[in-house]
């Protein structure tokens, strides 16, 4: 049904989205918690920075990543020389681009979820001897779980479909950085390959619907657990 190259694009997309989430989730949880619970100087700046990828043209985000994390970039050069980590024109770079683009979408529902957790419950946990970390892990995070799942789904979907920043930062290299979206775009450029483009499009739709259904099931399960 699918050619090996098409299968490769699907597998790579899932791989990129998964790594993007692994990178972005801890960061998003930390940022969302800070924004929801703490007052600190520069809070407005952090808030703006996180949301920047949402409002900037994706190409601009991709170009900034190239400037920062490219082989000649300020951070990229350091990472290459010190740890031998290279992002430019690698699938890991595609994951970084997808992650950056997904960050605001993951942070937003998480922040709302943290804000909706009653701080008086956290106080009660502290009087029972729970350290701030234990309070977070056993009270705040479980009660914010629906927000976390919403964030994960949105982030996953965004990562799967990311195009502009990815193609700018890591180009469209078959088998390395050519994800589903990039593959569809490439096929559309070639006359007579519309059928292949349509097949990949249907797969993209199927993956998105599956993710949505899965999240709905998990959220329902959680609700039942809390109110059972």
């Amino acid at each position, binding site marked *: 049904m699918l050619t090996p190259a098409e299968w490769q694009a699907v597998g790579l997309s899932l791989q990129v989205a998964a790594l993007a989430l692994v990178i972005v989730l801890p960061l998003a949880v930390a940022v969302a918690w800070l924004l929801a619970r703490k007052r600190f100087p520069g809070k407005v700046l952090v808030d703006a920075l996180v949301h920047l990828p949402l409002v900037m043209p994706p190409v601009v985000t991709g170009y900034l990543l190239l400037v920062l994390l490219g082989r000649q970039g300020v951070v990229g050069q350091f990472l290459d020389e010190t740890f031998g980590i290279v992002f430019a024109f690698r699938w890991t770079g595609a994951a970084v681009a997808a992650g950056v683009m997904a960050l605001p979408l993951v942070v937003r529902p998480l922040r709302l979820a943290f804000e909706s957790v009653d701080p*008086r*419950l956290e106080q009660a946990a*502290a*009087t029972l*001897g*729970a*350290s701030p970390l234990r309070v977070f892990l056993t009270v705040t995070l479980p009660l914010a779980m629906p927000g976390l799942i919403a964030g994960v789904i949105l982030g996953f979907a965004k990562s799967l479909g990311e195009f502009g920043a990815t193609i700018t930062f890591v180009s469209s290299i078959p088998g390395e950085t050519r994800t589903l979206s990039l593959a569809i775009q490439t096929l559309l450029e070639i006359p007579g390959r519309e059928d292949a483009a349509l097949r990949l499009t249907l797969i993209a739709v199927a993956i998105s619907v599956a993710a949505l259904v899965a999240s709905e099931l998990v959220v329902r399960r959680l609700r039942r657990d*809390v*109110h059972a």
Partner: protein
Amino acid sequence: MLEVDIHLRQGDFRLDAAFAGSDGVTALFGRSGAGKTTLLNAIAGLVRVDSGAVTVDGVALYDSVRGIDLPVHRRRVGYVFQDTRLFPHLTVARNMTYGAGRRPDRQALAHMASLLDLEAHLTRRPDNLSGGERQRVAIGRAMLSRPRVLLMDEPLTALDVALRAEILPYIERLRDEAGIAIVYVSHTVEEVTRLAERVVFLDAGQVAAAGTVDDVMGQPDLMAVTGRSAGGAILQGVIDEIDADAGLARIAMPGGTVWAPDGGWPRGTTVRLRLRARDVALARAAPQGTSIANALPATVMAIEAGEGAVVTVRLTFGAQTVLAHLTRPAVAALELAEGHQVWALVDAVALDPPVRLSGAPA
């Protein structure tokens, strides 16, 4: 032993409160806004304190001079909140063992669940519990964290009268078993009479009175808080006779005996009896041919005209204080003055049954 000396400001509000409480219940009493909850929060470390010290059994939780300010989770202060604050995502059992650490003591949980009658509810979620059950879970949860001191913030206020009557015995049991200092915020005289050994009366952030229950509750100025109809004195004595046919018990006190409805306590029990000021009448001569069961020989200590028609007469009855509410014409007709010997008349049917004093042998 709990020693508290706390000074803090929150905007225009100033709290300066010092008191000490040994094992057993110290009631924090006062109007809403007097600073009772703020004081509890300060002991627990939930609000910032400007200066002072809080020590439990010699361990400093806070000491501004020595620079000690333990974080909330290191204070081991059990806190029963007015709004229970149970964790909605955990079962009753896991709520109760939350403070017991990673390896909860099954036996301690079983004991506490039986003490609070919660065995049947351990696997349920707080959402499905009644108000009284939720409050009992909150009490058990605080106790199972093995606190050095237990703070209770009006744990019965959110409940109706029937539920209060249901929970009070559990708190009494806890008080008699726990062997730690309990600070109990309340504004009802019933709860204070039943539970407390000592009362700290807070007014606008300052300690207006502190001492044993009978000392503090007999002060006429407390009536502004308790409300005139609830105000009155609290007497202490030992049951020395029970008239089962009449349903009455006789309580021997230093100044004489008082008949009250039988509360079910055996002879020899040390009890506390509440005498509302509005239920006490005065006579200059020994009354004869009345239906009133009690005539207590007393001496007029002070006559204080209050607002409206009511005059509060403070009497001493064998070293215990009794308060009486009279009308102005009645005071004039009796020609009452300080030092007069009078009879305080109280009908037994007007009295609540006596309550056993905590710690006293049953």
